[in-house]
């Protein structure tokens, strides 16, 4: 919307240059994906003989099938399927909970400020910078005390806590842009704290909800470190499965299966970005960007 409107739509030299550079960037961004896809459709012989960028001679889904349902990851040879399901079961509650908490925190921090709330927000923000590795051991200990070590619940809890600073940040910055008058009008209309949140504020949060959900979903889905450390034997997420499949130090590598597995692990997040990417930018425009 902001682009100057007199820019002539005819193909000028500048326009051609523009498209060429956009195209080159697109190539750069797409190459890794292409390499993965192409490799996943090749046979092992073709991978050994051919080059990285060549198209698969006779594309086959064999590697995908293997990766999905029969590749061995440890003593189980059920492919990535169970891991994928574990991830789904873990990601959904973790994303929803952290988003909801972020929304509530943002609501309070923007519309019900109290003494020291800004300071607390700053303290919370600093948490974003904590290296993940620092968390591992003490968190294990705490989860042990709570009795939810090595379980999905422990993992969900960790993801929720780790997500709170960023979800709070997103929602607060968005809600700051909502007119205070709306809240005041609702108060005059007789709504209480919760009614205002559920009936007025939350229904207005769609853009930022999309941003936060995408952000949290990507982060939690792609997480490996917490997943490997805090999950139990039967609740390992997909990244751990992928890692187990692809990352062996002393055995024969099947790169086509590895790549197919990587693609399978990436599909949900890719799907989300492709389908909801538009809303992502739109949501950012709607307010998440502001300092």
């Amino acid at each position, binding site marked *: 919307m902001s682009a100057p409107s007199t820019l002539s739509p005819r193909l000028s030299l500048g326009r051609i240059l523009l498209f060429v550079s956009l195209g080159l960037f697109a190539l750069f961004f797409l190459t890794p994906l292409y390499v993965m896809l192409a490799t996943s459709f090749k046979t092992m012989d073709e991978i050994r003989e051919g080059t990285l960028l060549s198209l698969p001679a006779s594309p086959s889904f064999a590697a995908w099938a293997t990766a999905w349902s029969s590749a061995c990851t440890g003593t189980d040879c059920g492919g990535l399927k169970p891991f994928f399901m574990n991830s789904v079961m873990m990601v959904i509650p973790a994303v929803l909970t952290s988003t909801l908490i972020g929304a509530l925190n943002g609501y309070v921090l923007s519309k019900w400020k109290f003494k020291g709330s800004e300071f607390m927000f700053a303290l919370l923000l600093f948490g974003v*910078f904590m*290296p993940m590795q620092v968390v*591992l051991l003490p968190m294990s200990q705490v989860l042990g005390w709570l009795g939810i070590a090595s379980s999905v619940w422990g993992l969900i809890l960790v993801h929720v806590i780790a997500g709170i600073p960023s979800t709070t940040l997103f929602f607060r910055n968005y809600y700051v842009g909502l007119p205070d008058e709306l809240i*005041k009008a609702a108060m005059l209309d007789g709504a209480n704290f919760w009614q205002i949140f559920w009936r007025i504020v939350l229904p207005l949060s769609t853009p930022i909800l999309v941003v936060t959900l995408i952000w949290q979903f990507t982060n939690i889905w792609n997480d490996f470190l917490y997943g490997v450390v805090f999950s139990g034997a039967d609740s390992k997420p997909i990244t751990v499965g992928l890692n187990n499949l692809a990352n062996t130090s002393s055995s024969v590598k099947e790169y086509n299966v590895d790549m197919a597995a990587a693609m399978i692990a990436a599909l949900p997040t890719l799907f989300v970005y492709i389908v909801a990417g538009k809303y992502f*930018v739109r949501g950012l425009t709607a307010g998440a960007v502001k300092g």
Partner: protein
Amino acid sequence: MSAPSALRTPWLPKLVVAPSFVVSFLFIYGLMAWNGYLSVSASRLLPNYEFVGLEQYEILFENERWWVALRNLAVFGGLFIGGGMAVGLLLAILLDQKIRAEGVLRTIYLYPMALSFIVTGTAWKWMLNPGLGLEHLMHQWGFTEFEFGWLVDPDMAIYCVAIAGIWQSAGFVMALFLAGLRGIDDSIIKAAQVDGASLPKIYWRILIPTLRPVFFSTLMVVSHLAIKSFDLVMALTAGGPGYATDLPATFMYTMAFSRGQIGLGAASATVMLATVAAIVVPYLYSELRVKK
């Protein structure tokens, strides 16, 4: 500005945020303190609480690998942050020119953010490897002079890591900037046109300076990604060749978890945190002051 303050139950908002704040603070600051304590303990394979003073810090700063990690962080951080912001901004500006295929291109630039390096690491390793990837390809195409062996050159490998990092984050930066550009009042651009400014001048003199707040939040996001970069290095070079591409995060992980030197790892984490705090705290302070 003023939020409604007359509420019959003034404790309710506080009560609502209390649980998550208490938990988060325990988590963030409890763990920082715990980590701080470990850094002055003799912890090795597992945490223990024998106090040894600043010994771990002395060891840390005598460790050549740590210095390499710090230097790498400076190089990588500079390139990743600077490069990522520059490429992201450039893409945002290019995409802002009323491109018909904007939706598709935006998705293409944005999708790397959806993938972790656990997924793309191998592909990147191949592409950057001179014998398999780009260099090989160029040779096949007949450009036999072409050389691109950074990944295998200890002095240059860190630049490869930065390239892959930029690849992943530039799209996200683009999204932030694009959102920022879209948020700028249309009439400002029109005013500049009427004032006689050319398109590059409009971007350079008006739009980009106006994006200052976006720059700051982007900087925050990108720099925390830079400091926490871990998967990236692990997947691409595992710190190699040698330990030429080690970063503090990987250093800390290696020491604390594969080498049984938790105390040393904790010390390195403390130094990392202190560095971050030195940069972030003044920023947060100024941000929140301005808001008041």
